[in-house]
């Protein structure tokens, strides 16, 4: 058995010998492409592995590296997740986050679809400048806005209410979505709309019956992007929400679960894992839309 294998490899070597270029480029490919790629993937994914493995470790293993290999679990436990779901307001936080993300996404999709349609299709005087203005809004980072926005939110009587987040998140979602949808509307032939106009359709009918159905991929891209961005938002949610029950997942984990000097790493990591799962699942379903919208937005 080993002989035949050795023979086979010898034959392969002999065959490869005259063609050293091919063998050389194979090794070269391994060293120059697969090895660095492997390192990248390992480093980029390790924190998630660590997060996942910590959430299922019993505390005894978590704090004892001498007797237990830290990279593996010998007796996995659901205690941390059970603690999270039944002893804290975690389900409530998840629910709030979901509500805020869906609300903000719906609001920004409606606003940006109408705006993109007006800018790209109704073509009024100055429409490129309106488009540029909306795009510039994307360059204003939330870190500059959160203090004055907090006073605005208090003025409107929305402080500590998830409604404040639903209304504020569109400030960074609308510019992005409008930009993305303008690109999609551009790709829809203008002739289709002209035909409909000739047949006597009104502008709103054209938007509803012709343009929107054709722009569905763009709407999905904009929608999942908005959902992810609102799910991940932190600084506004931290500044505008005070009471424990109304917090979103990222804020609540950081402010409600981090208590005292001894951190409950198991529960913290379980919370992070559960909080990441919805977007990760969402992402796995729509990977292509994410990649295309990310790259499409950059290319535009």
């Amino acid at each position, binding site marked *: 058995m080993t002989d035949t294998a050795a023979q086979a490899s010898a034959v392969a070597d002999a065959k490869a010998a005259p063609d050293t270029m091919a063998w050389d480029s194979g090794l070269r490919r391994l060293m120059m492409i697969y090895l660095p790629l492997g390192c*990248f*993937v390992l480093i*980029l*994914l390790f924190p*998630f592995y660590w997060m996942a493995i910590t959430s299922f470790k019993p505390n005894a293993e978590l704090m004892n*590296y001498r007797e237990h290999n830290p990279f593996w679990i010998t007796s996995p436990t659901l205690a941390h997740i059970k603690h999270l779901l039944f002893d804290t307001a975690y389900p409530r936080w998840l629910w709030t986050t979901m509500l805020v993300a869906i609300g903000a996404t719906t609001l*920004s999709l409606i*606003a*940006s679809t*109408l*705006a993109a*349609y007006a*800018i790209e299709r109704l073509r*009024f005087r100055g429409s490129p400048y*309106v488009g540029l203005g*909306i795009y510039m*809004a994307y*360059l204003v*980072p*939330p*870190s*500059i*806005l*959160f*203090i*004055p*926005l*907090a006073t*605005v939110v208090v003025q409107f009587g929305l402080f500590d209410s998830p409604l404040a987040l639903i*209304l504020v998140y569109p*400030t960074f979602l*609308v*510019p992005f979505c*409008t930009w993305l949808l303008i690109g999609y509307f551009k790709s829809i032939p203008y002739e289709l709309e002209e035909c409909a106009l000739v047949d*006597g359709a*009104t*502008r709103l009918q054209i938007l509803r019956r012709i343009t929107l159905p054709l722009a569905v991929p763009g709407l999905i891209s904009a929608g999942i992007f908005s959902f992810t961005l609102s*799910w*991940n938002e*932190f600084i506004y949610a*931290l500044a505008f929400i005070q009471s424990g029950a109304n917090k979103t997942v*990222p*804020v609540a*984990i*950081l402010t409600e679960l981090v208590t005292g000097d001894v951190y409950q790493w198991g529960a913290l*990591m379980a919370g*992070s894992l559960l*909080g*990441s799962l919805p*977007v*990760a699942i969402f*992402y796995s379903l729509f*990977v292509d839309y*994410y*990649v295309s919208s*990310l*790259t*499409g937005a*950059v*290319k535009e």
Partner: protein
Amino acid sequence: MSVTTLSSPVLVQRQPNWLVRLFDYKPFLVAMCLAPAIGLLGVFLTYPLGLGIWLAFTDTTIGRKGEFIGLENFQYLLTDSLWWNAVFYSVVYTAIATFGKFALGFWLALLLNNHFPFKSLLRAIILLPWIVPTVLSALAFWWIYDPQFSIISYLLVDVLHWRTSNIDFLGSPWPARFSLIAANIWRGIPFVAISLLAGLQTISPSLYEAAMLDGASAWQRFRYITFPMMMPILAIVMTFSIIFTFTDFQLVYAITRGGPGNSTHLLATLAFQRGIAGGELGEGAAIAVSMIPFLVFATLFSYFGLARRKWQQGEAND
């Protein structure tokens, strides 16, 4: 159901009432379509931006309307060593993190531009750090940087025996600063890599074929084809990256909250500490406003510095 959908357009066409005609009147329709977006952005973006600049010139605190005090907030900041610290660290943080993100991200993009099996799966996996909420991955980093149970220390001390004591990642200023920068680079690589990969795929292979026929080496092909062709997209991605790294808040707030000894405050976390947690809205707003000149400068620098070829030539191609 089907009856109504069939009959309504017919009705609309036969007797267009004033409402339908109004909605077909173009200026009105444009105004209606733009109203939600402009309204939202006006009330929650433009107005707060102006209000923030106004607040920076007042002594407003939470619960008390402030009075105009001119440049006093800014004069105070100039004498405040914490503000100078935050400016210093914000600049260092942005410079090193941006450099790291782009060097590694460009490398990863070049690697991903090769042909190999499971390419789309790999591309999907690589975007994960960017998809997952930053605060939650920051918590994972906090745990990785734990003084006692850090997995990196375990690897270096107990497995590889390169060190004899655990690394104190977050306990002293410089290690804490670099730990945060490393976490930021980790989070930024996927976005840079995937955006640049999109740019790489638009470069025509015929350029490389022509260069190879002329005997260009791999390095020359990179230096004289890939790099110049990528300049416009690099400029855009870098502008975004610099803006959002300089104003970063989540990573620092989640991992160190500005500690140890206020050494890792970025301007955004300092603004939060003074403005929201400390209640000095005027001073917090002044710190936030003090970011604007840096942002404008960084944007102009990265955009015009990198995209120079493009705007010198005008809109010739692209």
